[in-house]
């Protein structure tokens, strides 16, 4: 009996020793947000853990909690998270914090291969010019989610009516008018709630040649938000709302927009590609297989989209061993082979070479072509350190305009004045246009 107990104990000790020897690295913690692409990320991480024996614990948070958690972790003497991810809303602010490791300090030879989308060079931050700069900037991030906005449309209804995806905003109005029959169906759903209207307005603004800042990549933070181009884009945005949109657009957020699409009450919407995951899930959607994705309609300057991707960063305040392990995972994640698994799991890829691959021919992955097209024309709305405050200002005035509280001219002029004050106070090279 005693012999049996000793033998069992020996086997137990041996099994623990062996399992510890398979992967001797540290257990990592990663901060991530709960979003439509999260499941795809988690499944892919599980593959990595099974392949390597590594262990990465995910701290999953709602989007609004992300910024605060990143701030608290990177500013403490010892970081809680070995990997943090930043969205375009606060990416620049944290990139400039000086608290992210230069990837090349961990691996001098590593560089992002050409198949990975560049996203206006958001992996490289130039501390001197406070801008994204692939030439003189430090390599501080690796993209982990290629979220951009695309045009969702009801391809089943398009086929029924013999329509083709709209090329211009006027085409969109014409096509949407065919289906616009509120409250059963809205021709177009816009997401103009105060917290997200700037992001949703981005494709319209850029397609008319408008922007918030004149030339931020070259350090010119002149305010051009009250330009005739932005005004024209906003007029079109409101025209679409009035003719084929939802009268309550200024109270619609991302959640509601996705609900309209999934319940079949929206014929079109410009939404993040990350929302695609649930559209073909019969447990979540009433329009399985019925949606298509396309390049956003064009304005006078062509089609455009707004960047909403996520970059992963390795903080400075974690042990070197953890930092190396974190980099190993990120390098693994962005390889071509693993990005295919990433797509299959329902996440949004960051490789532009896959987006244009034969995989896009598969009906299951029919969103890939639109993702590729929109990624090519996607731009960063506020690529500056003051992005959070800047976006709060543009959100407030755009929402007030769409809600009918301010005229377009009054709202854009007021927003431009506020932005000018903000950038002047921050010591940026700025200027402003004459009022509209």
């Amino acid at each position, binding site marked *: 009996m005693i012999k049996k107990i000793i033998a069992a104990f020996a086997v137990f000790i041996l099994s623990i020793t062996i399992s510890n020897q398979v992967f001797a690295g540290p257990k990592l913690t990663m901060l991530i947000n709960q979003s439509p692409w999260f499941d795809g990320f988690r499944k892919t991480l599980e593959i990595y853990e099974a392949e390597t024996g590594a262990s990465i614990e995910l701290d999953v948070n709602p989007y609004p909690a992300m910024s605060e958690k990143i701030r608290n972790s990177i500013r403490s003497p010892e970081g809680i998270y070995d990997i943090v991810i930043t969205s375009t809303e606060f990416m620049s602010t944290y990139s400039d*914090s000086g608290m992210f490791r230069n990837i090349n300090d961990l691996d001098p030879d590593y560089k992002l291969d050409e198949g990975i989308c560049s996203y206006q060079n958001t992996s490289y931050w130039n501390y001197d010019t406070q801008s994204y700069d692939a030439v003189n900037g430090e390599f501080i991030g690796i993209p982990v989610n290629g979220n951009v906005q695309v045009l969702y449309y009801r391809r089943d209804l398009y086929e029924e009516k013999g329509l083709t995806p709209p090329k211009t905003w006027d085409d969109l109005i014409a096509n949407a008018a065919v289906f616009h029959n509120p409250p059963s169906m809205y021709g177009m759903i816009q997401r103009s709630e*105060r917290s997200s209207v700037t992001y949703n307005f981005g494709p319209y603004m850029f397609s008319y040649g408008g922007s918030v800042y004149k030339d931020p990549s070259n350090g010119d933070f002149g305010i051009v938000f009250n330009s005739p181009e932005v005004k024209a884009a906003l007029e079109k945005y409101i025209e679409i709302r009035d003719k084929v949109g939802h*009268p*309550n657009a*200024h*109270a619609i957020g991302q959640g509601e927009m996705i609900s309209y699409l999934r319940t079949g009450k929206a014929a079109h919407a410009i939404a993040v590609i990350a929302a695609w995951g649930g559209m073909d899930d019969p447990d979540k959607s009433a329009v399985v297989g019925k949606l298509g994705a396309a390049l956003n309609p064009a304005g006078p300057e062509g089609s455009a989209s707004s960047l909403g991707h996520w970059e992963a960063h390795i903080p400075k305040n974690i042990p070197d061993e953890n930092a190396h392990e974190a980099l190993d995972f990120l390098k693994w994640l962005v390889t071509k082979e693993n990005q295919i698994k990433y797509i299959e799991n329902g996440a949004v890829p960051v490789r532009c070479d896959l987006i244009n691959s034969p995989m896009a021919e598969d009906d299951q992955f029919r969103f890939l072509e639109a993702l590729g097209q929109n990624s090519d024309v996607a731009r960063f709305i506020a690529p500056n350190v003051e992005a959070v405050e800047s976006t*709060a200002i543009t959100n*407030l005035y755009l929402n007030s305009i769409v809600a009918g*509280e301010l005229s377009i001219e009054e709202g854009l002029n007021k927003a431009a004045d506020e932005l000018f004050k903000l950038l002047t106070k921050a010591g940026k090279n700025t200027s402003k246009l004459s009022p509209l």
Partner: protein
Amino acid sequence: MQNKDLSWKIYSLLPIVLILIFLTLLPLVSIFYNSFFDIRWKDGGYIYNFIGFQNYLELPQNKFYVPGLINTIKLAIIGVSFQMIFGFVIALGISKIKKGKSFFVSLFLLPILLPPIVIGSIWRLMYGFDFGIFNYLLAFLGVFPVDWLGDPTIAFVSVVILDVWHWTPFVVLLLLAGLESLPTDVYEAGRVDGTSGWSEIVHITFPLMIPTIIVTLVFRFILSFKVFDEIYLLTQGGPGTSTEVISYSIYETFFESDNIGLGSVMSVVSLFVISILIIVVLNIIKRVNKYAN
């Protein structure tokens, strides 16, 4: 002997006084101190740049805080008024129930037992334009759907409705406790004099309840300045700034914009405004008590 008593009092009170200083006064001093600086995080440390009263001078032009302060005061006055009226009526009704009183008390307590995050989510769904139950019921009655959260005026009313629903039970609870502790002999004497029904409420119950009503009013008035969860989940201050409140402005400034200096000024000014309002209310109470005596 007297000295021994004094030392005992000092030593026994010292721990709680120290805790009070540490938890209350130090944060206040810190916020007041920070309000004179532009504070930014850079290269692993905070950079304090003394700017005197600049943050204070900029506050009146702030596009979020000023409407937020006005809305908060409006919400406190309108919301608390309705809560007091409904709370008194409901408490009076429950106090008259002979059987199953505990059932009704439990039922009315439900809203304050639910986590605010749940309340906000439920009401956001109920207020939904196309999917919400309110508009569904209105459509059933043939009424055109209401833009509960989209119309700037109606959105504020929607927030008031939610606040009244959420906090009326708190008022009911306090007033019910007050009603049940009223002396019965006064009522008996009143009945001998021929009072009953409405006149009993007006001439006996209400005057006797004034101290409880005032305490409840002050409680609710102070607490109503803390409104945050409902706004955060329901409207995030929009449309425009029609439902902005000071807690949300301070949260956004501190935690989203990371502007510690301005956030501190907002906190200091809010504290000042609330203190003034409390002093006014306490003075009113003093006068009412004096009058009652």
